[in-house]
């Protein structure tokens, strides 16, 4: 459980900063740092167990069917990274409290930072591949928020988006790779995966998996050619750069490669891919660090370069190389963190990061100059500092690796070249900022920052010196511990400054001397570089994004051209194709089941329906007649339901038909009264062919299905309706009990649709014709008296009927849905007879809460079964006896049905009443004083 508390603490830490912000920056910083300190102590408290050879582990089943467990482990590798993340995180929290200006939202910043810290901790401690991936994506998300923290600045937004796109795409590749990996290992459990390395390497899918996983790691760790996002991510506030882009996030890819090294690292393909990518990145980054002029860009490219170095070491893969990689991770975090913090200080105190405007700062800020110089020296690999040790180990490994065979001398040569470049750019940075006189004045007069702002960088630099001087004492322990997680047998470590005169030492010397010389020739290099047109990665990236977007746009426009006929023809054509394919495969159409005899009534009904359908099409330019024809079809359908013993459906169909017709009338009011002839003969033939063939295919399909024995689930429902659901009306029991979850979804959709229509109609001003097609103005007698009085008299009766239908629904035809429709129809009749104004002044309640309340009632009924320890939506029913009333039955399904009823009434009326409100010339306006207080103003934003 202790392990689970570590990510949990940092996660809780996300909630702390925002409410604490009002108590001042200092307290907010302290409160934010507290959980981090506790988490760090918790991590270190596991050290004794680790040293005695144990493996702290925590596991909780999450989604077993996916192989996803909430499992954490803390082996040496995790410990190394966790200390790095939490420790440097602490320093960054302290540093940021000085870096951010007083008016900036430090609470939000800290919350993002803690979120990021949680996801990083999650990555390094995850004991499950999928869990690891989830945290991996979380780092992409939270880093997006952090990079784009200054969201008013376009560079920050674009940089954040680029980082998100690149690392997110890599994350998707990683997911595919991890799924494959888990499949090959037979489990997503980290221990199992790490133990089955041989089987994984021998698998056929190994190359694909490896490439996918490496894509994830390379994008995250900014390896060539995916490095371009890192320099652009420098638009982030400097604490973020120091944390994400030197110490933690970009190391996630490195961590992944180290973590999975036992499982996937033992192959030639791995060595080639990883080593060469690493070397290329190492050189590429170093070169660009030398030619850039922005302080942070130099550091960014230098980070890219160092990440390449570590990657190359992991690719070489010998035990000593792994140790060297881990060592360099630590060292790089220390000196690069310090460098970034000092770059931030310089930026903060001078107002610029351009080398041109900086210079001779050693007089103004001597302490910062000293600290930066030591950190830069460590970066360059100067003896007696930590960078020297790991770099020398790197040189040694490139010498002894068997990779590249006969061309084996190439690696140490390239390594030395990279070393030369890194000495040159470190020297250039220090010289240009602190010694060389500035060409232009910086915007602000520089001075030393507050002592506490300097403290984090100073602490890191002290670590650099201490490790550089006493490597055996300080680094051996943690390195041995960390490498046990990656290697089977840890090689004996001899960390020392002096190994005698040997080749690696010589390479270091060459690097330093040639590096100084290179900086001397720096001017000529610059002239050389100017010959090439500069490539702005952002322009290339944005261009690519734009191209993809425009391709997608073109494609969408082709498919989605706004023609409903086109969509219908696609849909129907697709259905036709599939149904035809299915039918062709049948041996014969007739399934052998006897058919019912045809009688006169059936024939008449069928004829009426056909007549109605054809009539609708033929009269489509006379919309009222067309609408009447359509209603003929609907009525006959409902009669058909009644005839074939589906009274529930018949009732529903009837009510739906009424509502639909009214809705169509209302909608038609706004459309042109006369429709022009639009279809050409060619199109008519196409449509006729499509419709005709579809009709034939559907008819054949129906015939084929109806003449065959069907063994469907319906028997189960019929048999279990009374014992399982306590109701004799199977349809209703299915709706509210067996398939209650579906119904819940449906009424939610209904309520949402109602709300959407309400929102769309709100403030809508449509053109309203004031006369009909022949130019007659509408009759001013809007509310005929007979209709008015009759509809009012009928309302209680109709409500009674709907209550009756509702109550008997569980055992006889009826139910909440039908009852809701009946209520809605009765109320609509009032609307039609008396108009919107009168009705709304008398029915003084908005329908939105009714619909939402209905969904809430249904959901709460479903949740109620949790109280009794049953799964969601379990229904209960029982028979009760009351004096006077006799025996009756109650089911919780009734309550659910009430929710359905309310949702249907609310949604239907929300749609119809609002559409009607648009229709009436007396619709309430903003300046309409008659609207008074009783009428819901469509312009008011708050739903009442």
């Amino acid at each position, binding site marked *: 459980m202790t392990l689970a508390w570590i990510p949990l603490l940092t996660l809780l830490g996300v909630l702390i900063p925002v409410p604490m912000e009002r108590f001042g920056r200092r307290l907010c910083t302290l409160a934010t740092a507290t959980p981090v300190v506790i988490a760090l102590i918790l991590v270190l408290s596991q050290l004794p167990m680790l040293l005695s050879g144990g493996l702290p582990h925590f596991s909780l089943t999450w989604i077993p069917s996916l192989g996803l467990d909430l499992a954490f482990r803390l082996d040496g590798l995790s410990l190394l990274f966790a200390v790095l993340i939490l420790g440097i995180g602490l320093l960054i929290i302290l540093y940021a409290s000085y870096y951010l200006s007083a008016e900036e939202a430090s609470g939000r910043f800290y919350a993002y930072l803690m979120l990021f810290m949680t996801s990083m901790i999650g990555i390094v401690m995850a004991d499950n591949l999928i869990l690891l991936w989830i945290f991996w994506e979380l780092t992409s998300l939270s880093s997006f928020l952090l990079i784009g923290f200054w969201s008013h600045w376009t560079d920050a937004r674009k940089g954040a988006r680029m980082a998100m796109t690149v690392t997110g795409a890599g994350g998707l590749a990683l997911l595919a790779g991890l799924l494959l990996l888990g499949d090959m290992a037979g489990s997503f459990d980290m221990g199992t995966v790490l133990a089955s390395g041989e089987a994984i390497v021998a698998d056929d899918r190994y190359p694909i998996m490896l490439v996918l996983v490496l894509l994830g790691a390379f994008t995250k760790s900014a390896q060539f050619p995916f490095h371009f996002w890192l320099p652009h991510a420098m638009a982030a506030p400097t604490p973020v750069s120091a944390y994400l882009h030197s110490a933690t996030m970009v190391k996630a890819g490195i961590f992944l490669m180290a973590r999975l090294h036992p499982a996937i690292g033992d192959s030639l393909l791995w060595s080639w891919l990883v080593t060469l990518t690493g070397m290329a990145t190492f050189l590429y980054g170093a070169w660009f660090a030398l030619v850039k002029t922005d302080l942070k860009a130099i550091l960014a490219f230098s980070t890219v370069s160092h990440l390449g170095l570590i990657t190359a070491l992991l690719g070489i893969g010998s035990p000593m190389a792994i140790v060297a990689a881990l060592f360099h991770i630590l060292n790089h975090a220390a000196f690069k963190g310090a460098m970034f913090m000092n770059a931030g200080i310089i930026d903060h105190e001078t107002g610029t990061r351009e080398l041109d405007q900086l210079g001779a700062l050693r007089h103004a800020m001597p302490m910062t100059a000293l600290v930066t110089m030591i950190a830069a020296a460590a970066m360059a690999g100067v003896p007696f500092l930590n960078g020297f040790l790991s770099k020398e180990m790197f040189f040694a490994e490139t010498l002894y690796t068997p990779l590249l065979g006969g061309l084996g001398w190439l690696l140490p040569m390239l390594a030395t070249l990279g070393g030369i470049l890194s000495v040159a750019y470190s020297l250039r940075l220090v010289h240009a900022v602190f010694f060389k006189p500035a060409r232009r004045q910086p915007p602000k007069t520089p001075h030393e920052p507050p002592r506490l702002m300097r403290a984090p960088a100073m602490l890191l630099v002290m670590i650099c010196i201490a490790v550089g001087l006493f490597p055996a004492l300080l680094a051996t322990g943690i390195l041995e511990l960390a490498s046990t997680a990656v290697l089977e047998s840890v090689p004996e470590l001899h960390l020392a400054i002096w190994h005698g005169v040997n080749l690696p030492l010589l390479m270091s010397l060459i690097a330093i001397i040639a590096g100084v010389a290179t900086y001397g020739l720096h001017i000529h290099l610059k002239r050389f570089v100017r010959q090439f047109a500069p490539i702005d990665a952002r322009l290339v990236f944005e261009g690519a994004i734009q191209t993809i977007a425009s391709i997608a746009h073109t494609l969408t426009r082709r498919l989605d051209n706004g023609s409903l006929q086109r969509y219908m023809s696609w849909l129907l054509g697709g259905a036709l194709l599939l149904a035809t394919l299915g039918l062709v495969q049948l041996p014969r159409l007739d399934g052998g089941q006897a058919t019912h005899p045809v009688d006169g009534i059936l024939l008449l009904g069928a004829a009426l329906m056909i007549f109605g359908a054809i009539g609708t099409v033929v009269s489509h330019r006379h919309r009222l007649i067309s609408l009447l024809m359509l209603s003929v079809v609907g009525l006959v359908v409902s009669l058909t339901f009644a005839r074939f013993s589906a009274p529930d459906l018949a009732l529903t169909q009837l009510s739906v038909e009424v509502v639909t017709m009214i809705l169509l009338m209302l909608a038609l009011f706004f459309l*042109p*009264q*006369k*429709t*022009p002839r639009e279809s050409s003969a060619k199109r008519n033939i196409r449509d006729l062919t499509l419709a005709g063939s579809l009709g034939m295919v559907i008819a054949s399909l129906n015939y084929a299905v109806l003449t065959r024995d069907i063994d469907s689930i319906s028997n189960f429902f019929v048999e279990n309706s009374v014992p399982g659901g306590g109701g004799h009306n199977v349809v209703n029991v299915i709706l509210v009990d067996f398939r209650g979850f579906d119904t819940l979804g449906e009424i939610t959709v209904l309520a949402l649709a109602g709300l959407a229509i309400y929102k769309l109609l709100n403030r809508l001003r449509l*053109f309203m*014709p*004031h*006369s*009909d*097609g*022949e*130019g*007659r*103005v509408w*009759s*001013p*007698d809007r509310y*005929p008296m*007979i*209709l008015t009085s*009759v509809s009012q008299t*009928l309302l209680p009766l109709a409500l009674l009927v709907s209550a009756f239908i509702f109550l008997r629904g569980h055992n006889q035809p009826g139910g909440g849905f039908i009852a809701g429709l009946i209520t809605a129809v009765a109320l609509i009749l009032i609307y039609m007879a008396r108009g919107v104004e009168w009705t709304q002044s008398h029915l003084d309640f908005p329908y939105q809460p009714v619909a939402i309340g209905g969904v809430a009632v249904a959901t709460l009924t479903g949740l109620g079964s949790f109280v009794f320890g049953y799964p969601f939506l379990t229904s209960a029913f029982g028979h009760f006896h009351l004096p006077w009333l006799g025996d009756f039955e109650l089911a919780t399904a009734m309550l659910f049905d009430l929710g359905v009823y309310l949702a249907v009434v609310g949604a239907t009326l929300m749609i119809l009443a609002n559409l009607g409100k648009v229709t009436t010339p007396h619709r309430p306006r903003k300046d309409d004083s008659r609207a008074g207080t009783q009428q819901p103003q469509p312009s008011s934003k708050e739903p009442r």
Partner: protein
Amino acid sequence: MTHYVILEGVIAFFLIAGGAFAFIGSLGMTHLRDFYMRLHGPTKSTTIGIGCILIASMLYFWVTEGKPDIQELLITLFLFITAPVTAHLLAKTGLHLRLEHVEKTRGHPVELRREEVGEKPVPHPDKGHG
């Protein structure tokens, strides 16, 4: 025994009367000469006809099943409510549209006020569109 015969007679009378009224109503709807005359057929005659048939049905099931059933009465009630409302609305529409009528149709749209008929026909804004 005899009251069965009498009841049979009553039921038969209502059935025949219902059929006759419905037929006359339908005939009127097809054969009368203008809208206002034709309106009488379905709204009055046919309604009576269906009412008769419903009463016959109610009596029949009362006799055979032994207990009265009020469903038919309810249907009749609703029918008698809807028919006049429909007729009223249709007649108003006809007057508003100034449907032509033959000489023999008595009465003129006097109950409508002048401004209700729409003195000046306004060209429809969508005319140019179609």
